């Protein structure tokens, strides 16, 4: 009776308030096999959706109607319909998909298959596997440049960035960076790529025209041993002003001037901060904190942490739907 009431109340709450809500944030909880849905206005969890085993990378379709979920231990990519919050489809993904990136054409999904040293390219409309590309050991980070020209994969144990030509599906160039590269983020104009190396403790800035490293930065968090400073997720503001770098078990996010590469501040968040996403107007940055099982909300203007929101166990990825 009680649970029925609660469900009804929840449904009513969601049903009633959904249209009026500010944008929603989706968080994948790696060890709960769920997604937490957060209303970014009230900064509260408004729903928890059951998904496949070990959900890690998540991303939105370009029309913001679907959420793609890497269900790593189910060896599949699930497709969640955002309107109904139901899994409506699965895509062939290759084994152990961890991170992925969607081409601006809204069709080609590049999936890093961590256990197989392969990047799989799937057409999400036909579910056809277009290519499987051999990369280094433990492919992890995936990014497609906004102009659609490059797909970049990071291989953790090989410590390389593999630059995949999106027309030929072949690797045009490999760049060795610091140990255990995790994540790549392109600037809006596709001219610069930022890549983090978790064990190396570095972030590498790559000039995309020449495919050469133009800068390497490391971080020093006051009072934290250097080997705990481990860059993972990166998020860039679209105005080119800031780069935010999640520094893993140092429990801080670095704020970097994206033009001069000067480190402006370190913000204390939850334990083992992993991934980041900005909301639509870029006033708030959400971080997933794997060990403390919460999400920190950073006020971008004030550069202050304003809230921490409890989610599921081992929150991994976060995306904020600008259209909801």
């Amino acid at each position, binding site marked *: 009776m009680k649970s029925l009431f609660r469900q009804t109340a929840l449904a009513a709450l969601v049903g009633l308030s959904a249209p009026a809500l500010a944008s929603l944030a989706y968080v994948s909880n790696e060890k709960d096999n769920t997604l937490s849905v957060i209303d970014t206005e009230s900064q509260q969890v408004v729903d928890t959706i059951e998904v496949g085993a070990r959900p890690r990378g998540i991303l939105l379709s370009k029309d913001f109607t679907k959420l793609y979920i890497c269900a790593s231990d189910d060896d599949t990519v699930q497709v969640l319909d955002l309107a109904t919050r139901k899994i409506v489809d699965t895509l062939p993904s290759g084994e*152990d998909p961890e991170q992925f990136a969607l081409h601006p054409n809204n069709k080609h999904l590049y999936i890093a298959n*961590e256990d197989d040293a392969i990047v799989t390219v799937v057409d999400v409309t036909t579910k056809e596997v277009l290519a499987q590309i051999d990369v280094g050991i*433990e492919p992890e980070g995936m990014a497609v440049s906004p102009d659609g020209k490059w797909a970049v994969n990071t291989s953790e144990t090989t410590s390389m960035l593999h630059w995949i030509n999106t027309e030929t599906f072949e690797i045009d160039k490999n760049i060795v960076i610091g140990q255990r590269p995790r994540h790549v983020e392109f600037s809006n104009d596709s001219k610069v790529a930022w890549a983090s190396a978790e064990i190396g403790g570095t972030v590498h800035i790559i000039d995309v025209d020449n495919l050469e490293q133009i800068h390497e930065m490391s971080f020093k968090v006051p009072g934290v041993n250097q080997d705990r400073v481990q860059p993972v997720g990166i998020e860039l503001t679209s105005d080119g002003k800031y780069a935010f770098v999640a520094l893993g078990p140092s429990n801080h996010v670095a704020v970097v001037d994206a033009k001069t590469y000067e480190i402006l501040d370190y913000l204390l968040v939850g334990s083992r901060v992993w991934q980041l996403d900005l909301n639509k107007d870029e006033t708030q940055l959400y971080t997933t904190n794997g060990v403390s099982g919460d999400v920190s909300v950073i006020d971008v203007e004030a550069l202050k942490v304003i809230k921490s929101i409890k989610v599921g166990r081992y929150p991994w990825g976060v995306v904020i739907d600008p259209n909801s």
Partner: protein
Amino acid sequence: MFRPASLIVTLVFSLLSALPLHASETIAVKIGYVQWAPDQGPVLSNVLPEPEDAGLRGAELAINDNSTTGKFMGHTYTLTPKVAESEQAAVEAFEALQQQGVDLFVINAPASTLTAIMDKAATDTLVFNSGSPDDALRASKCNPNLLHTLPSYAMLTDALGQWLKMRRWSRVFLITGPTAADQAWASAFRRSAKRFGVKIMEDKPWTFDADLRRTASKELPLFTQANDYAAVVVADVRGDFGEYVPFNTWLPRPVVGTQGMSPEAWHRVVESWGAAQLQSRFYDLAGRDMTSEDYAAWAAVRSLGTAVTQLGKADPKSLRRFIFSDRFQLAAFKGRQLTYRLWNGQLRQPIPLVHPRGLVASAPIEGFIHPKTEMDTLGLDEPESACRING
């Protein structure tokens, strides 16, 4: 004198990394692997025997890892494994490989064999010890060309000592088996106990020779009779009687040490920091779980691969210099970058404390601090070792 040299290394590295990869030279890296494990003798607890290829399969996995990276760089890696049946055969296998031009080695053998092998090593031959946890090899009997990827007994028992202190279980009952390894483990533990303020209330040698599978419940409670203790520490390296200590103690107390909850270089239950990927890669290769010996051999071969990738060279002298430089760091699924201690060549590393089906903690335990790196709270720190293999 040191600074200009490291500057040059940095410069060379930047130049190299700026070069397009197809321009890099083809390099063939040959690594020799020699294994000799003496017969442990009959043990009471022989239900779950140790795999005979422990170590070898770890080296093989690392060769695969190196090769995948190498194919993008024009570097190839081959492992020549020799599993010997005696100490003498191990030394001969080493010499034969050396004569074939191999100058990079991983040795999985006891300390005495390792010492005999180092006596036959050419001036620049670089050797990784993946099989002996012997403290003397790190405290006084060091060799400039010998590096250690397996944690020493002192590192393991320091991990345990920190944990006991953190739990405030600082009064313990120590049971030590009869073998030389048991004695070495126990004396390492006594040192750790002193270091972290753990008091050994009873320090008893194991002398019973009955088959405990029939009589454990009768003999062990009497053996562990004492006024009070917070935990029982077992030193039984080969796994003779130790498995029968848990749940059979006089007082209802946990059992730690070589059985019960153990400090290990590696264990199946380690999964954080990407370890799950290494575990599944290993399982696919070997069809069994990865042991500490596998991990140590893997770390040795990966150290070489990492250095070759970054340096673009494979001669032992250059590799050794690079591995001890501040450009070197090994990503090894323990949540920190691993480096080698300059004074004795030991690979610094966190030590997981595990029970057979779960991870309890990972040392260094938070709160045990060190001016350089917390990992140096485990094992023989510079002032405690007489070795200075880098001058």
